Every structure is written in C-alpha cells, then in structure tokens.
C-alpha cells in the first residue's frame, strides 16, 4: 500500500466528518442560490432559488426507486438467460 493508499484508508475512519462537510457544502450552495440566479431561465420554474437542488434530488430518488424497485424486478433474468456464457 503506497502513501496515497494509506491516506485513503485513513479517510475511511473520518467518514462522519466527510458527511458533515457534504451537508455543509450543500447548505452553502442553496444559500448562494438565493442571491445568484440564471439570467434567462430555461424552463420558467428554474428562476426560483433551490429549483436545481430539488430537481437533482427528486429526479435522482425517483430514478433509483423506479428502476431498481419497479422496472428491474420485471426485466431481470439470470445471468445465463440466453445460454451464451
């Protein structure tokens, strides 16, 4: 394990701190969004602060839940379904 590897290993123990940092950054971004907005909104709604935050979160959650919980159970087969492995 080289220096970088050891560094990454140490970061695993600091997981909680990293998570707090992420929440902090997200909060700062939303705060900034109150003051900085688009000159020409593309969709209308994106003129409101927080639109893109909500968009990322909602689209992300819906995509994962629908694809993993609804779609995949219907279309998944065993790995050798076509008998070509």
């Amino acid at each position, binding site marked *: 394990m080289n220096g970088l*590897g050891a560094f990454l290993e140490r970061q695993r123990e600091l997981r909680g701190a990293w998570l707090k940092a*992420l929440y902090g950054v997200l909060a700062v971004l939303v705060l900034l969004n109150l003051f900085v907005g688009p000159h020409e909104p*593309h969709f209308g709604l994106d003129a409101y602060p927080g639109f893109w*935050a909500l968009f*990322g979160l909602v689209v*992300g959650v819906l995509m994962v*839940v629908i694809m993993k919980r609804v779609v995949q159970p219907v279309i*998944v087969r065993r790995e050798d379904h076509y008998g070509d492995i």
Partner: protein
Amino acid sequence: METSSFIHPAIGFLALAAVLPFLRGKWWNWLLPAPAVLAVFAVFTMTPGDHLTLNWLGQTLLLGRVDKLSLVFAQVFAVMSVAGMLYAMHVKDRGQHIAAALYVSGGFGCVFAGDYLTLFVFWELMSIGSTFLVLLNRTRESVLAGFRYFLYHTAGGLLLLAGLLIRYKALGTWEFTPMAPGSAHLYEWLILAGFCVNAAVVPLHAWLPDAYPRGTVTGSVFMCAYTTKTAVYVLARGFAGWEILAAAGTVMAVYGVLYACIENNARRILSYHIVSQVGYMVAGIGVGTAMTLNGAVAHAYAHILYKGLLFMGTGCLLYAAGTAKLDKLGGLAARLPWVMVLYMVAALSISGMPVFNGFISKTMTITGAAEAHQTLVALGLEIAAVGTFISVGIKLPYFAFWGGKPTDNDRVLAPIPWNMYAGMSVLAVLCILQGVAPSILYAYLPFEVEHPYVPWSVWHVLQSLLLLGFSGLAFYLLRKVITPHEGLNLDVDIAYRAVGTGALRFVCRPLAFLDDRWTEAYRTGGLRGLMGIALGSVWFDRRAIDGVVDGSARTVRGIGGLGARTQNGSLQDYLGLAAFFALCVFGLVWYLG
C-alpha cells in the same frame, strides 16, 4: 503561394498492421505508439482542402476532404490513439494490435472520406477491425458476442450500401454532402438508418452493451472511442437539423442512464452511458443550430477523452482483479488508489463537474437546445445528467472501491503495468486542461456562432454544483436500494435474438427432416443396390483402374486436407479468409478495370 500538405493519418496504422506479423524480437511493442504520434503530427500540419483523389472504375474518389469538421474529429481520434496505444503496449497478442490498427485507420478513413464509396469501404474496415477486438478476448462469451456484433453491423452496413446505391441511381453522384432536413427520400432514410446503427440510436443500440463489455481490456478502450463518434461525425455532416434526431437523441440520453442505474457489470454500465452520452450529441445535431452543433462536436471531443479513460479505469479493475462485476468488487480504494483517482477524473468529467471537460461541453449542448426553444430536449438532457452522476460518478466507483466493505486485503491483484497508467494519465491531464481552459477545445469548433458560449459563469458553476450535489445526496440516501446484483437485464436485443433463433430453426428444421428421410431411403433401397454394383466394380477396379486412380486419389486427398484445415469452424478464420478473398477479388477487378 499556399502550400498544400496532407498525410493521411490512416497510413501509419495500415503500415503497422502490415508489418506487425513479421517483426522479430521483444521490442516491437515500442513501435505501437508510432503511427499514433504520426497521426497527431499529420493532423496538426495538414491544410484544409481536397487531397488524395483516386480514379477507380470511372469514379473519382476523394480520400482527403479536410475542413474544420473533419479536422476536429481527426484531431481527437489522433490524440485518443496515442493514449490507447500506450495503454495497450504490454499486450503480447499481436492480433489485438493489428485489429486495433485496422479499426483506427478505418475511423480516420471515414472522417476524411469525401464520397460515399470511400466512406463505405472504411466503414466496413472499422466493422471488421472492431469485431476482432471482441473475438480476440477468446472466451466463448466473447466469440458469440463478436459474432452477433458482426452480423448486426453487417446489416447496418447493408442499409448504408442500399441507401448510397439508390442515391447514386437518383442523383448520379457519390458525393457526401448535407441532406436537406425534411426531404423524405427512401435513400436518405436508408443512409440515416445505417448511420444510426453505428451511433447506437435507441432502439438500434443493443449491440453496444452486448459487445463492449465482452471485448478485450484494451480493445474496448478503442471501441468506445471510434465507432459511435464516427457515426456522430457523419450525422453532423449529413443530417444536421433533422428534427427526428433531436427526439432520438433525447430518448437515448435518458434510456442509457436508466439502464446504467440497474446494471452490475462496470463495463456494461459504461456501455449504456455511451448510448446516453452519444444521445447528447445526436440531440445537438438534431436541433441543428450552430451552437448545438458545436456542442455536439465539443461533447464528442470531450467524451472520447473521458470515456476512453473510464474504460481504461474499469479495464484496470478487470485486469487486476479478474472481474468488472460490482457485486464481486469493493474495498479496493487503498490497494488501487491511482486507478481510483484517475477513474474519478473521468467520472467527474462525464458528470459535468466544473474543472473537468464534461462541464464545458455538456452545458453547451443543453444551453443551445434551451435557447433554440427545445425545452423538452433540454429537460431530458438535464435528467440524463442526474443519472450520469449517480451511476458513473458515484455508484460505479463506490461499489468498486468501497461498497461499504472493509479493505480487501485477501484478493490477489495482478500488478498493473506502467504503460496502462501512462495511457490513463495522458487522458486525465487533457480532461482537466480542457475543463480549466475551454479555449483549448473551443478553438477547434467548426461552426461560427454570434455569441460564443461562456461556460465559466458564476451561475453555470452554481447550477452544476447544485444539480450534482443533490443527485449525490439522492445516492447517499438510497445507497442500500441501488446496490448492484448479479443478473441480466432484458433489452431490445431480445427481438433480434428471437429473429436469429427463428431463422436458424426455419432453415435447420426442414433440412434435418430431409436429411432424416434421405438417410432412411438410402439405407433401405440405395445401399443394397450399391452393394451389388460395388461387388461388380471391385473386380474391374482391382484389375484395371488401381494404377491410374491411385495417383489422382492422392491429389484429391491433398486438396481435401487443405479444405478441411481451412474449414475448422472458427469464425475468426472464416472472417479472415472472407476478407482475404474479398481483397483478391477487389484487386482483380481493379486490375482488369
């Protein structure tokens, strides 16, 4: 006086493919990057204009059309070939290098082709070269996938051929010029369909996630760069502003990320993301304003660099750990730290994170689409951006390098050769350079715009960070849901596999039936009669013919043996022979014509 300069970048690669089988010694692998370096030199020194015309069968073929559009694609092809050849230098199997060289030369040939005949020849050369990059992985799975890949691309090539022949009949020219949007000639649709097969336009895309995860470690790196982007190039040249492409591209962008979300094999996740990313380009071409066309070209450039790097990173995982399936990996960050870092550069690039090159290309297409009032297109591309970050930006590296598992100290990892790191580093540096200084890329964009796009504005940066940050939060909340599992997700290839199996049955069943009956009839009737005749002829044979026949029998046996050796049932040999005979016939026709 202006000097005209043009070295066709394909020449070096063709020469490499020709001499590689005959080189002795250990050092031949140092020759591999040579044609790539020559290609870079050629691209940066060539002058715009028409070069290399060839008269063939009464037709004038144009092998070197150099303009801004062909130059920018040739440039990124050349840069990518340097990184790809570096990455592949340790591979001992010369067949893989020959296939890669032929394939890359086909890519250059297509980009500089000024007429459809030249385009078609190099198009097929790419198809053959890339088929071998899959076959030469030498597992049953890969050989079958390579066979399907070849059939599919042959069918696509035939659509293109039919289109260009009908077009020649109608217009009397092979010239490869833009098609006016909205005109609805059959030949235009056929050519478009042929191009769309290679661009992996949904629902013609299933060959891609079928074949690319099964190619060789280094072969897939080449394939992810050239086939789809050559198709993007010909679409940009021939079909700019065709509205159907805007819709098709948006569907591709979303469809690809949805499948990537549920896939387990790292290289298949990336394959579905090619469909998605090429969707951005196809959509940009379909919208057809100068800005979206530039966006498509810029995105193709950036995409080749980061997608090559992504396939290199997952290739390292496959090479070192022996698998690219995420449910089998995890806890490798501390053991493959540099692979992780280099992979992350590409992952953040594809996600459009500021500082990396996806940020300066992706946003250009989206902004262009929105400014052209294609709101649905822009919305679809934003949705795809969320999915991209979730699956390639976080899911793949998380489950490969961490996955909530402790550091995996038990797994035996094959040491990764220096040249693989070198190839990756070249691309990683370029991804960051272009992201930080967009003009490095923008300077080469082919279309004139009134107001140049400025990616580095406070709002663009903030918007990207908001979108990506909160998609990341969505991943974190659902990391237990998105955990990948083994399994095959059905895709539209179910249809063509059914056609294939059906056709096989349609041919085999009647033949088997006939064969059965014939054997039966032969056994009861034919055999007895034959025995009688045989007894009679034995006498005659022993006395008279033996002497004469023995000589010719030996000859026949010799020829039969040769035939048996060539018909050994391996597809690669058949393909090779077929290509060889085709070339002989080609040469003969050329000579006699």
